């Protein structure tokens, strides 16, 4: 636990000092919500349209904020320091925790701005909050796995994008379903979609540390290497 906390705090310090990821993600989210509010004046978007726009904003925020936690470390070659000092699964989980914090805060801020700017009534606030939270966690996991899998590749950013698209499709569909119904859309599967998001996140977070172990491991002591 101490190792995980230390690695999480390192991510917070390094990212806060740099702020590049936070600023890009924040600027993109704000621009997207403002653009959606203007688009909304041209016609009345349906709950499904609004849910789609909000989910896409979150997906792009995740694609900008999370894979770079892994890929910039790979590019700067600082990942070797961590590999010398900490187990791979803890390295992954430290970054995942930081990513989950950023995405949860982003979805909270974007959700509030969205409700203010787009003027779409939130019919089921509980489902809306749960959908945003579930989508944020599922996107964090999907995008962190995309970043992890792309480390060491010669075209790592391109590969991360290619891996990110299929990984992000299930949470995107589930998230749009939950958010659409929270905004007054038809259907009764909203909470089931939230459960699906949580399940997706849980399965991926169960697999990811093993992936990290394979990709970032140092040779085990006393074994064939």
């Amino acid at each position, binding site marked *: 636990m101490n190792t995980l906390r*230390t690695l999480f705090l390192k991510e917070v310090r390094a990212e806060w000092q740099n702020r590049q990821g936070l600023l890009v993600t924040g600027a993109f989210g704000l621009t997207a919500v403002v653009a959606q509010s203007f688009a909304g004046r041209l016609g009345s978007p349906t709950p499904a349209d609004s849910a789609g726009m909000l989910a896409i904003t979150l997906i792009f925020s995740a694609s900008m904020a999370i894979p770079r936690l892994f890929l910039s470390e790979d590019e700067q070659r600082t990942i070797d320091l961590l590999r010398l000092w900490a187990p791979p699964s803890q390295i992954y989980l430290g970054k995942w925790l930081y990513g989950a914090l950023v995405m949860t805060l982003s979805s909270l801020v974007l959700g509030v701005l969205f409700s203010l700017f787009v003027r779409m009534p939130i019919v089921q606030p509980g489902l809306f909050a749960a959908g945003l939270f579930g989508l944020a966690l599922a996107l964090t996991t999907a995008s962190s796995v995309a970043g992890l899998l792309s480390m060491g590749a010669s075209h790592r950013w391109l590969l991360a994008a290619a891996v990110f698209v299929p990984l992000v499709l299930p949470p995107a569909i589930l998230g749009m379903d939950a958010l659409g119904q929270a905004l007054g859309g038809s259907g009764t599967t909203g909470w089931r979609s939230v459960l699906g998001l949580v399940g997706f996140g849980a399965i991926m977070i169960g697999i990811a540390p093993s992936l990290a172990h394979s990709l970032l491991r140092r040779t085990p002591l006393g074994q064939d290497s």
Partner: protein
Amino acid sequence: MFKAQGIGHRFGSRWLFRELEIELQPGMVLAILGRNGSGKSTLLRILARLLDPTEGRVVQTPAVGYAALDLALYPSLTGRQHVDLRAALAGTSAASGYLAEFDLARAEDQLVSEYSTGMRVRLKLALALLGKPPVLILDEPTASLDREGVSLIERIIQQQILGGAVLMATNDPDDLRHATHSLNLDEHASNTLS
């Protein structure tokens, strides 16, 4: 205390080295020699377990201090934050003024992006030595260091061999003065050393 058996590594179809046998005992300073591109740094990365060899195996004690020119530091963290991170992950703590031993006292709250090359080398040494690892792996340890820095390396090596061992890649004849054993990657396609 440290053993590597039948180590070999290749890039594409070219073998850098094959069948290397290395066994370190306390008090040893093993210098790895060879021209540029002979695989010195690659061998050290394998021995630090940052890279899997193409063949062979490494058996070693868990604690290895590793300082290399190509080991990157976090530009957005300070020297002190690096030491704190290393200490926390090693489950130890660095004494107050630890960086002063490496002549970095005045720079400990400076971002690493503002460090000179020589200061970065000193910080890497400080990080490698935290927790007193029994084996110290150094890649070109005196490159980029001024005279005081070179004296610091000499002191570190002298202290390290009191209870541990040093493995260093070098082309500097001055560094060789400290070596008790050497391994030249140019001269041997397969080497045995113990």
